[in-house]
């Protein structure tokens, strides 16, 4: 496997793991990381979060990653775990 692909995968996995940890701890989800799939919807179906949870995620995202979401961003950023990972990766580089 090419080293740049390895790096990309590593960075994605690191970010994914940190986002998962953030969701589990801030929302007190009774899931282990292995039970949360990357494309799981956050609201409605999937994790079934509500608007109170959305506020919690937005606050924690700012505290944990220094990322603030405005209303327009959050509709799409909070669709799935992976879309949240995309936002973090697009705004923060080299997450270890």
């Amino acid at each position, binding site marked *: *496997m*090419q080293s740049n*692909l390895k790096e*990309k*995968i590593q960075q*994605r*996995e690191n970010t*994914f793991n940190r986002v998962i940890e953030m969701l589990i701890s801030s929302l007190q989800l*009774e*899931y282990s990381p*292995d*039970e*949360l*799939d*990357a*494309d*799981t*919807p956050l609201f*409605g*179906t*999937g*994790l079934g979060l509500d608007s109170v949870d959305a506020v919690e995620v937005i606050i924690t995202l700012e505290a944990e990653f220094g990322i603030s979401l405005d209303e327009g961003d959050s*509709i*799409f950023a909070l*669709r*799935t775990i*992976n*879309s949240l*990972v*995309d936002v973090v*990766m697009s705004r923060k580089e080299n997450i270890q």
Partner: protein
Amino acid sequence: MTETEVGYHAIRNSVAFAEEPELRCLQLTGSQAFEALDAVCPCDIFLQDGQMRHTLLLNENGNPFADVYVCREAENAYLVGYGSNVDEIIDWITDHATGITDFLITDLGKSHANLAFDGPYAWELCAEVFGTNVLGLPYLGMLVLDDIFIFRAGRTGEYGYHLLVPIDQKNTWIEKVLTTGAAFEMARANEAARAQCVLENFFFDINREGQYNLTPLELQLQWRLSKQKDTYPGAQAIQELRQAGLTHRLTCFTTPDAVNTNAEITYDGEIVGQVLASGYSPMHKNYVGKALLRKPYWHAGLDGFRAEDSPLKTISAPAVNNLSLNVSPYHHSFHTRKEELT
């Protein structure tokens, strides 16, 4: 535009209507109706009145053979969804609800016809045709109005409603829908149009990836399984796979060219996966699809793959941003949409 394009456009921008004979709807009555469902479904069955929950029916290998919602209305339970045939599902429930006898399964498909509505303004059309109670129905909610069963659940990423109307009233309701629908630029959506929307939104499709003997783990559908239950059909296979660890996973992708189902996906000449479904997305202006990719190639955000000489990259699902996310029954209307959404 083709019939499929017209239907697709209506689903994504206004409202589309379809008769949906492939939707199964079973009503379970009796003092043990919920116990019977609890014995066969991999999700938790405690439901409030009018609540629906999305789950699957699994065979002993943990492979889904039906994509279903379990629902509660008063003391009755419902199983609504796609896959298999009704008689097979009824026999399967009866066989697997061991020791549970006080329940009766009724196929509502024999007495009712299913009308499906999808689109950012589906709620408005349904409210005009069937009454304003529709407006108060939350996502994954159901209600019964004068022998009409209304389920709010869709697979297109837009507002979605399934209505079961008595068969003898079907033509009257369709006439009313078509008359009222004209003002909403409503169109009929065929199966191809709806399947493309399902694909773009990465909803599970029993007729596509559901045919590959995958489990909810590979399909990224663990959220449809209970964390507490371990006795449903297929539970042991799921547990064994969890312990062994996954080797492949379903991932969303885009490519500029058409690729065939089952096409091999390579990276640097090495086979790393397979295309399970794909189709052109007018919204994405690319082909989008679902691939079964080997670990660790299964992550979103990677490019450099190839399928049938076309470049392919993995993306986070869903592949599209749905208009329904910006439309609210409390603030918007199809008739004033141009002023509201600019």
